[in-house]
């Protein structure tokens, strides 16, 4: 009996396989071969070890059931159901299978042995390409995960050595000091009925008690910092560092899910984890007594970034760090200005845009900032803010943050205004989508509060949310994004640009990262998401239906990959324009990943135009 004779009688299995990509594009003999050489298992939680382990490697095709593919760190790589393949990475690379399978719902799996798979991939190039591509895509998404085992990803609970040192609010200041002395700690949590009410630190004892001559027999509640920032034990070290940077604090209470205090992490604890010292530098920036001192400290930023990026695994954190440093510079410069020129005549708030707002600043990023002040400002009082804007932006330039070529800086009158004036500007851009307005939207719709009156910024945000967003605006945004193309040619080759001295390069920012930022911004605006950070926006988009989860993951992975590649190139300084790389210096794997990333971006661009600009093109 011939082999095709058997398959003919297994019509159901054959037609199932024939419908799957890549078999649906291949001659029927290919699916026949698959069925003739396949094995079938029924996979359950109990037998998966027996069924999947062994000498022989297979290509697996899911016929029924649901299975999660889980990587070494326990993170779900992908969910597999009818028609999905797995096992091909190890067939293609010859390496051991890395991922584990978790059976969600048992079912039938077709297994093609390595020898038969090899025969098919040599016989049918389309089949080989299909799996090589699928493999690249998988690699792209695992790229980030492979590196994310550094200290910043660790859980806070792993860091806390001591148990919570607490005291009741009625206790005296003396008692608090004694508890701190006997426990050998520099801070104590004030709790009432097990709930965190405040924090008292060494510094509070000095500044709020000794220096101001307060009676040490007063209750400790009179000197505590009420409603302190805190973190949950399951959060990551990264988040703690972020909170400390943002609020310039050195003690962070740790709570469990039920909000019971468990202990305290300090900036010293975090410093012990890593050798470079961004927390210290930020602290010094906040304490600097003169602009000269600030400039000296700012000189350390590039050095710090270089040493820091060697120890940090999550490269996107470097952007957060740089933005944090810029925030600190701006806050301190503002304070120094107030010291010299007196208090502001009305409430105001610093706001930043673009990369600083998205927390993805690089060493080449320029300034994008503005000032918002209260609606009841008197005309004569505007001069104060003109000087403030000029003071902060010019010193910021001297600190190494480049001036904005597009003049989006608070030194420019167009970037200062009352809440109502700012709202009117945005309204104008949204309702008259000219190319310049589109450019403005790209920059100004990524915005974040830095310092000043937070309530003022919030009232501005509240007004912004009331501006009705029109379909026309989104269509214009989507169309605008689609005019920017990824540097991939028709035949999957890189389209390189040439610099004056003839070296070839690829611009990762404008032709990659910026497109993703633009795409994510449109979706985020459409869904009313308030974050400015691209990764935070993507995370928030998961709870909306506008993008599928796999689209979100693809964009996130591409973004992370490109950001990381860009930062690497900046650190190794390749004598190329900023944000650019020479693809020849990449490894073959990186080149493949880069092409795949560009390919995914192109698909996302097309999908975006289709969603928002249907018919208007």
């Amino acid at each position, binding site marked *: *009996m011939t082999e095709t004779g058997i398959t003919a*009688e297994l019509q*159901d299995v054959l037609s199932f396989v024939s419908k799957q990509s890549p078999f649906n594009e291949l001659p029927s003999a290919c699916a026949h071969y698959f069925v003739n050489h396949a094995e079938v*298992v029924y996979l359950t939680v109990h*037998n998966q070890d*027996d069924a999947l382990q062994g000498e022989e490697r297979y290509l697996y095709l899911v016929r*029924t059931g649901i299975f999660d593919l889980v990587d070494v760190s326990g993170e779900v790589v992908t969910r597999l159901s009818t028609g999905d393949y797995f096992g091909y990475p190890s067939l293609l690379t010859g390496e051991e299978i890395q991922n584990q399978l978790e059976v969600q719902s048992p079912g*039938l799996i077709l297994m093609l042995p390595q020898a038969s798979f090899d025969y098919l991939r040599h016989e049918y190039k389309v089949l080989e390409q299909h799996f090589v591509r699928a493999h690249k895509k998988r690699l792209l998404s695992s790229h980030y995960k492979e590196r994310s085992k550094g200290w910043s990803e660790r859980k806070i609970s792993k860091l806390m050595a001591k148990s919570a040192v607490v005291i009741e609010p009625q206790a005296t200041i003396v008692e608090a000091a004694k508890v701190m002395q006997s426990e050998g700690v520099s801070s104590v949590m004030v709790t009432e009925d097990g709930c965190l009410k405040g924090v008292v630190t060494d510094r509070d004892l000095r500044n709020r008690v000794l220096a101001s001559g307060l009676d040490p027999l007063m209750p400790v509640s009179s000197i505590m910092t009420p409603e302190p920032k805190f973190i949950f034990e399951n959060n990551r070290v990264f988040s703690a560092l972020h909170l400390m940077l943002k609020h310039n604090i050195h003690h962070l209470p740790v709570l469990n899910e039920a909000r019971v205090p468990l202990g305290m992490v300090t900036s010293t604890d975090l410093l012990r984890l890593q050798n470079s010292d961004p927390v210290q530098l930020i602290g010094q920036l906040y304490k600097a007594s003169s602009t000269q001192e600030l400039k000296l400290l700012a000189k350390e930023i590039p050095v710090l970034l270089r040493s820091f990026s060697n120890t940090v695994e999550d490269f996107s954190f470097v952007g957060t760090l740089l933005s944090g440093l810029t925030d600190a510079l701006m806050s301190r410069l503002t304070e120094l200005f107030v010291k010299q020129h007196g208090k502001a005549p009305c409430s105001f708030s610093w706001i930043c845009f673009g990369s600083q707002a998205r927390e993805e600043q690089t060493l080449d990023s320029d300034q994008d900032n503005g000032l918002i002040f209260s609606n009841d400002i008197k005309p004569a009082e505007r001069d104060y803010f003109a000087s403030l804007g000029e003071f902060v932006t010019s010193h910021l330039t001297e600190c190494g943050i480049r001036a904005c070529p597009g003049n989006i800086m608070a030194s420019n009158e167009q970037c200062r205004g009352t809440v109502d004036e700012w709202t009117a500007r945005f309204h104008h851009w949204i309702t008259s989508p000219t190319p310049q307005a589109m450019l403005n939207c790209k920059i100004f719709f990524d915005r974040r509060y830095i310092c000043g009156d937070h309530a003022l910024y919030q009232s501005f945000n509240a007004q912004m949310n009331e501006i009705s967003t029109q379909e026309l605006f989104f269509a214009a945004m989507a169309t605008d994004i689609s005019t920017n193309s990824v540097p991939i040619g028709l035949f999957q080759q890189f389209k390189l640009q040439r610099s004056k001295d003839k070296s070839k390069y690829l611009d990762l920012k404008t032709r990659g990262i910026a497109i993703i930022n633009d795409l994510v911004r449109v979706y985020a605006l459409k869904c009313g998401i308030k974050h400015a950070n691209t990764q935070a926006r993507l995370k928030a988009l998961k709870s909306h239906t506008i993008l599928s989860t796999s689209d979100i993951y693809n964009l996130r992975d591409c973004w992370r990959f490109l950001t990381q590649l860009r930062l690497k190139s900046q650190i190794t300084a390749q004598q190329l324009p900023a944000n650019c790389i020479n693809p020849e210096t990449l490894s073959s794997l990186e080149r493949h990943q880069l092409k795949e990333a560009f390919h995914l971006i192109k698909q996302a661009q097309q999908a975006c135009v289709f969603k928002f600009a249907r018919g208007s093109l």
Partner: protein
Amino acid sequence: MFLSSLGEVYNFMKWRFPWFFGHGTAGQRWLESELVVLDLELTGLNPARHEIVSVAWVIIKRGKIVLSESRYMLNADVQSLAQSPVYHGIDEEQLKRGASLEGIMNNLAGVLKGKVLVCHNTQLDWSFIQTHARKFGLEIRPDYMLDTLKIEKSRLLRQRQEVGQDQLRLPACRRRYGLPDYQNHNALSDSLATAELLLAQVNHLDAEKHIKLSALM
């Protein structure tokens, strides 16, 4: 049934009632057994009067169905197809290209020797195999026999469900395990369908993994 010697009686007893002989070889783990999952297409239900139209089997090794070792054979010696073309879609033209019944039975004797025979309603298929093998003086004797229909029936009874005949038909049994429906019916697709059902049944019984053959009998 004709048993010519005491030895044969013993062998028969051991084969038909393995639990009586303790854990013996039926105590081997099911994963280590080689199973032949078989289906016959028949012209009727009476082995004395009706004929075998086709025979097909798939092999299970180490818990995996190995499709490359499947066989599907048509009986070129069929005397009267009766209503069979209506049910099976096999006509006399196709049969002419088949194998002789003796050849088929010889093949079966070879493949079943020392193996475990599995059918859906084994009693029926087995009675046909025995009846026709005897015509050629052949003795076909697998080590053990399993029946997916019986396994399903006792599982349903254990769950204290009323068991109607319709619930025990192959497609109904498969649906209970979420297995896909088969559109095409022939001996080979039915033997694959039975094999998949057996894998599902075993793995649903198999909470502690290494089930023994005797647990399925």
